[in-house]
């Protein structure tokens, strides 16, 4: 297979790209790992409210060294701070925010995304794996928009965007947009619509790296 010459986005660049689509005033939950990086790229002229499942709204950047508080952590168990106007609440209210449709956007990592928006990100289904799910299923069904952030393929080059999940599902028909190191894809009723590709990427090559039919919706 011949490749055109393109440069994949770094993890930080994926986060930076996704951050551009977070509107002013949005209530946003950032999943553990890559999605968390979005916080670093939110522009200063916007007020975005970060929610953490363990009972924080409007938390801020990590504390200065030496000022860490073991009772002020986010869902990833990282130290955070609170912004003026932030609030604490219990797990019941926190998941009411998620399940009840009050979170505008959540950004999640993925093992696989299917063409219909099914998401797999909690279990590889491996026999000996210890399962763990946390709040992923709540975010998948509850957030108004679900953004997925992922490398376009696995380390071994297998597509992560597929016609049908082979990994156990986290949430059905829940993904709205996919940010990969190669492109941005909207999950639409008509299928997976590619709206942006990295410089040098051709639609044909992108399709070859993808396990489901794509629609070219780039301008």
């Amino acid at each position, binding site marked *: 297979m011949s490749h055109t010459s393109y440069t994949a986005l770094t993890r930080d660049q994926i986060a930076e790209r996704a951050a551009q689509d977070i509107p*002013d*005033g949005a*209530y946003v939950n950032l999943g553990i790992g890559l999605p968390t990086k979005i916080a670093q790229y939110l522009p200063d002229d916007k*007020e975005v*409210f970060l*929610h953490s499942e363990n009972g924080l*709204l*409007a938390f801020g950047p990590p504390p200065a060294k030496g000022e860490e508080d073991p009772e002020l952590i986010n869902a990833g168990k990282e130290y955070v701070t*609170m912004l*003026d*106007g*932030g*609030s*604490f*609440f219990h797990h*019941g*209210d926190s*998941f*009411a*925010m*998620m*399940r*009840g*449709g*009050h*979170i505008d956007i959540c950004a999640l990592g993925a093992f696989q995304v299917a063409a219909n928006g099914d998401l797999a990100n909690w279990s590889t289904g491996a026999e000996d794996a210890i399962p763990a799910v946390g709040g992923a299923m709540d975010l998948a*069904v*509850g957030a108004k928009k679900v953004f997925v952030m992922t490398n376009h393929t696995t380390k071994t080059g297998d597509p992560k965007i597929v016609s049908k999940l082979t990994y156990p599902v986290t949430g059905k028909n829940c993904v709205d947009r996919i940010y990969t190191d190669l492109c941005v894809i909207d999950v639409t009723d008509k299928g997976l619509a590619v709206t942006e590709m990295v410089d040098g990427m051709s639609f044909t090559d992108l399709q070859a790296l993808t396990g489901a039919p794509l629609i070219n919706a780039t301008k």
Partner: protein
Amino acid sequence: MINKAEKSITDVLSQIKDGATIMIGGFGTAGQPAELIDGLINLGVKDLVIINNNAGNGDHGLAKLLKTGAVRKIICSFPRQSDSWVFDELYRAGKIELELVPQGNLACRIQAAGMGLGAVYTPTGFGTLLAEGKETRHIDGKDYVLEYPIKADFALIKASKGDRWGNLVYRKSARNFGPIMAMAADVTIAQVSEIVDLGELDPEHIVTPGIFVQHVVQIQPASTEPASDESTSTAATA
């Protein structure tokens, strides 16, 4: 900058259209958003569905709204009171529909809406007229009635203090339905006695986080000055 503090009750209520479903906070007059209700009356919208614990007292507030004929249906737990004559007359004349809900079912159906649940099995009302025709189930030795969420397009509530992000704290027994209604409505409009600067409300003490509140209007405390049209709400300075 996100600023949910609104200057004019008239402006903020203008998004409410005929046929809207509206939760109104309060238990009796405690926590009743009197100025927002007056604004709703002035707005002149019709065919409303109102959710409140009661069905109005005397001739003002919710009772006055009912009297204008704007309300098609009321969902409440305790309409009959010594001074509920406006509702009583409309009800006897068949001019208003009543869905009578035990108070705790009213609360937990509102909570179910806010929490995104599809339905709940509640023990309250089992075997009574208020559960007639409803699905029931015997679970773990006890009988339950299946009840569905009560959602609303708007919640009009009264809080004590708010900030420009919509965070709210309440005062004493005026808290009642405010926090759970704020969670169950698409658009929550809170009238407050004071809009404070961001950060003035202690994050440990905030009862309703701003995520549940879309608009906050400061109501000028009653004064001896003659009231002009806009004088019931003042600009937020936060």
